[in-house]
């Protein structure tokens, strides 16, 4: 009797040990995955904000990291097709899209914009130093498998339709999915 229960205990212990080992291995794997992921919230649409976002994204992808970029509020306009000058359904959303020029090639600087002279000079200098322009970096990011996630709420709010946005994007997501992306990332940035 006592011997039988002792055997059961040993078997239970072995099973328990196995479960613990599995859980530890799983945790280690999870920790490793997390270490290798970065999520950036691209909130601002200015040239001098989207630019570093895309430099970091492409560099992270080149380093073998998983990269997710969540484009929300003014950041969403970086994903608008270059030929789209105006988005929105109502006069107010249309006016907003004109005040906040859509598409990266029309992005303004957050300071020293000087009616477009600033962005032109910055692009010129960057070109001389062979730093790729954000429009080119966005394409590179997409080709490298960077997950470009449009914000569904911003699209609804600003009246931006799926067909107003460039190709190769992930399905639009909401705040909870964005949080889940961030939770699973070693690095989270809000730019």
């Amino acid at each position, binding site marked *: 009797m006592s011997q039988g229960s002792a055997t059961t205990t040993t078997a239970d212990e072995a099973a328990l040990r196995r479960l613990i080992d599995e859980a530890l291995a799983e945790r280690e794997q999870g920790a490793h995955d997390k270490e290798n992921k970065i999520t950036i919230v691209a909130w601002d649409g200015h040239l001098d904000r989207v630019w570093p976002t895309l*430099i970091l994204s*492409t*560099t*992270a*992808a*080149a*380093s*073998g*990291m998983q990269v997710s970029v969540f484009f929300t509020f003014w950041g969403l306009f970086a994903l608008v097709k270059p030929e789209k000058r105006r988005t929105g359904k109502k006069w107010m959303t249309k006016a907003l899209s004109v005040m906040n020029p859509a598409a990266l090639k029309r992005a303004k600087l957050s300071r020293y914009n000087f009616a477009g002279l600033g962005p032109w000079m910055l692009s010129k200098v*960057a070109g001389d*130093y*062979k*730093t*790729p322009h954000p429009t080119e*970096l966005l394409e*590179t990011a997409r080709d*490298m498998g960077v997950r470009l996630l449009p914000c569904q709420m911003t699209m609804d709010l600003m009246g931006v339709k799926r067909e107003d946005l460039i190709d190769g994007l992930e399905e639009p997501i909401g705040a909870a999915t964005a949080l889940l992306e961030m939770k699973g990332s070693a690095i989270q940035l809000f730019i």
Partner: protein
Amino acid sequence: MDVITATVDARGQSCPGPLVTLHRALRDAAQGDLLELLATDPGSRSDVPSWAELSGNELIEAGEDTGVYRYVIRKA
């Protein structure tokens, strides 16, 4: 004797150019292959070792000759 499998010429490119170019070349390489990266971007002196640490590839050699930085990387 280790032989360089491919040379990645990123001379004249600036951040993030050299690493993106290197990443593309690595995709076509086999595990254990040695790749040589040539760059003129002074930022590469800190960025290539950091990239190696992040990506898990091995940086075996780093040097400079008349303004050209040369790195040898072994694909993990």
